[in-house]
């Protein structure tokens, strides 16, 4: 930052437009503004602050508008006060304009922050973020190190202000970035930690534990199921064996029944056979003689037939038959038989030739008998044949059943060996009960296993979810871990950087201080205190310090700060050390509290304080030595001429200053009170 120009417009005691050219060169880097107390030196110092930040540290700071302008302002009317600052930073020109519209309200200046306008032009172009731009160029935190009241600068060297030293180092060197980064990173870590808390509610049981329990239980039930299935299979086998045994007994019973059936059948067959034998006996006894006499009867039949054919044996049939034919009138051949006809006559002759009825009957009876005997023989034989057939059939059956019975008995004997059927049945029933119980258990186990498998599936899904959740947990934890590692790294860098800068600054301070006050040393200790020491018997010892020494030490510190910032800026380290840059030093009354000796010493060093130095001095501080020391470096020189309407006051404060042989009145009587900036050089 290189200041170029300040324009004050009706700002405080500066009436109208007052310009101060601040641009300096490398060799002539000093601007001196002379002014007596109350002439407006501090107002100009604060005008920088107001222009840059909108605030100033002055008595009656509400009264920004020039008094003359305000007094002329009718009640309720407004007028503007304005400060314009032109400067250069990193090869860009900035024009900052801040103005405020002040209203006359009951004779008092009234304005609010909203009445202020703030504009920055960079290389002629208005930029959008003026406040940020100002902060980046020269933050409010840094401003106090470069725009200060010299009479109070000695305070920096007091131990209680070590924090200002520390802050100055950190802010200028951009170490504050680390500090803020660490702070924000810790806050970010907390955000991430809160997010982690939200992922897993406190006290939640891991699904893996639940799964382990389920798997354990599932395994137990599977073993139980397996054992019971095996037991059931064993029992079923046992039952089958018992059933087999029992089957043998049952077969025995069935064999017994069969045996009885067979025995009954055999008995029946035997009875039937006996009956057939009886029947045979009866048949033979009743009808066998006819069969024996059948040939004799046959011969008799032939004899009788022969007789009959000869007519020797009367036939009752012929007589009756002939008579019937005559009565009917028709022959069996269809010939009509009419009385008197030949045929009828022939038939009547035949009737006369028939034998007597008794003879014929006897013959007929004998013929019937011989016929009957012939039939009996035939029937007997048939019956006997049938009987024999029946007997054969029965004998076959008897033989078969007898054999079967024998087999049954043999089998039964064999089967009868072993346990009793009752025991076997009881045993089988017991097994069946066991099987039933096992079946129930197996069913129950299967049900439980299904239930557990279902639960396991659910827990697997929960695990998947948990794994997803765990992934989130791990990520969240890793993020926190990363934060912590970054915090450690940043803290480490921060500490190293702070110490490095402190040591470097301390060296510079010591060098500057010793240059100004030979024989004494100043350094920035580990507690960031400006410490002034003196060599006593070969060792450096803290010594009591004067205000002057403290002021020199403070200026040495500021000077070192500015120069280090400039060095690092020129070394291209502005990205690392955000505060690196070129800064001016604007000092009000830098020699105010110094005795003559220190004032002379400091004045020799002022031009070295910063690349650009603006000093406000009163005539009492502007000694010949100071003038001589600064003269070679002065680029611009101004006087603040105080115009005063009060003649008495004017007479009392009337002072002048002679610069380069020309005398300038520092106080002028006028119609109204204001300060005029008069350019001397």
């Amino acid at each position: 930052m290189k200041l170029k120009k300040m324009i004050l417009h009706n700002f405080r005691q500066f009436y109208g437009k007052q310009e101060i050219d601040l641009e300096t060169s490398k060799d002539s880097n000093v601007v001196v503004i002379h002014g007596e107390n109350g002439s407006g030196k501090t107002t100009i110092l604060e005008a920088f602050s107001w222009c840059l930040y909108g605030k100033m540290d002055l008595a009656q700071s509400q009264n920004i508008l020039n008094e003359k302008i305000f007094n002329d302002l009718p009640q309720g009317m407004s007028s503007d006060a304005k400060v314009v600052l032109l400067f250069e930073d990193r090869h860009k020109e900035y024009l900052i304009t801040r103005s405020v519209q002040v209203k006359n309200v009951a004779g008092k200046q009234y304005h609010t922050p909203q009445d202020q306008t703030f504009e920055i032009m960079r290389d002629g172009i208005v930029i959008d973020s003026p406040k940020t731009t100002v902060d980046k160029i020269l933050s409010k935190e840094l401003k106090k190190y470069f725009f200060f009241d010299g009479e109070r600068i000695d305070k920096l060297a007091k131990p209680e202000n070590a924090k200002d030293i520390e802050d100055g180092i950190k802010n200028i060197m951009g170490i504050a970035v680390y500090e803020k980064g660490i702070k924000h990173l810790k806050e970010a870590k907390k955000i991430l930690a809160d997010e982690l808390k939200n992922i897993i509610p406190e006290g939640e049981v891991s699904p893996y534990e639940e799964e382990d329990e389920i798997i354990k239980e599932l395994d137990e039930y599977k073993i139980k199921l397996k054992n019971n299935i095996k037991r059931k299979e064993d029992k079923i086998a046992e039952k089958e064996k018992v059933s087999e045994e029992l089957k043998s007994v049952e077969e025995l019973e069935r064999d017994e029944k069969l045996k009885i059936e067979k025995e009954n059948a055999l008995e029946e067959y035997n009875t039937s056979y006996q009956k057939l034998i009886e029947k045979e006996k009866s048949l033979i006894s009743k009808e066998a003689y006819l069969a024996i006499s059948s040939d004799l009867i046959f011969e008799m039949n032939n004899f009788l037939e022969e007789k009959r054919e000869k007519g020797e044996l009367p036939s009752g049939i012929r007589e009756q038959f002939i008579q019937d034919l005559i009565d009917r009138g028709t022959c069996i051949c269809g010939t009509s038989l009419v009385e008197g006809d030949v045929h009828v006559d022939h038939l009547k002759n035949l009737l006369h030739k028939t034998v007597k009825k008794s003879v014929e009957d006897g013959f007929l009876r004998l013929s019937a008998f011989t016929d009957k005997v012939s039939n009996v023989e035939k029937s007997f034989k048939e019956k006997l044949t049938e009987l024999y057939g029946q007997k054969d059939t029965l004998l076959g059956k008897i033989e078969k059943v007898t054999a079967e019975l024998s087999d049954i008995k043999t089998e039964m004997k064999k089967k009868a060996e072993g346990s009793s059927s009752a025991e076997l049945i009881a045993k089988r029933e017991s097994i069946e009960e066991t099987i039933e119980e096992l079946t129930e258990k197996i069913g129950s186990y299967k049900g439980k296993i299904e239930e557990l498998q279902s639960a396991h599936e659910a827990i697997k899904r929960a695990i998947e979810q948990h794994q997803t959740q765990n992934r989130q947990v791990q990520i969240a934890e890793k993020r926190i871990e990363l934060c912590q590692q970054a915090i450690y790294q940043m803290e480490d860098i921060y500490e190293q950087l702070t110490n490095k800068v402190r040591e470097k600054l301390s060296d510079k301070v010591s060098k500057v201080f010793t240059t100004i006050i030979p024989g004494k040393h100043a350094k920035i200790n580990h507690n960031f205190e400006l410490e002034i020491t003196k060599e006593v018997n070969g060792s450096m010892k803290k010594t009591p310090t004067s205000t002057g020494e403290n002021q020199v030490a403070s200026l040495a510190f500021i000077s070192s700060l500015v120069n280090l910032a400039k060095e690092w800026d020129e070394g291209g380290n502005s990205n690392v050390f955000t505060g690196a840059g070129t800064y001016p030093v604007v000092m009000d009354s830098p020699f105010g509290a110094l005795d003559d000796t220190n004032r002379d010493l400091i004045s020799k060093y002022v031009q070295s304080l910063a690349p650009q130095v603006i000093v406000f001095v009163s005539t009492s501080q502007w000694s010949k030595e100071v003038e001589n020391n600064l003269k070679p470096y002065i680029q611009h020189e101004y006087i603040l001429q105080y115009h005063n309407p009060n003649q008495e006051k004017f007479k009392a404060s009337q002072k002048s200053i002679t610069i380069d042989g020309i005398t300038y009145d520092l106080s002028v009587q006028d119609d109204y009170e204001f300060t005029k900036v008069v350019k001397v050089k």
Partner: protein
Amino acid sequence: MSKEQEENVKEKGLPEESIEITDEITRDLVKEILELERDNLYVNRANLKEQIATLVKTKVR
């Protein structure tokens, strides 16, 4: 997956892929945080912590 990883998955429920925080990741994060802080050094933004948290999330995901 190694046996140890399997055990981790089973016993601790850790995911298969482990996320390692390397020095490079940390360095990158620090660098980016510092850039963020520098950009916002004089800007009163309350959301820097959120921005850093988001930055961390992009590093570990």
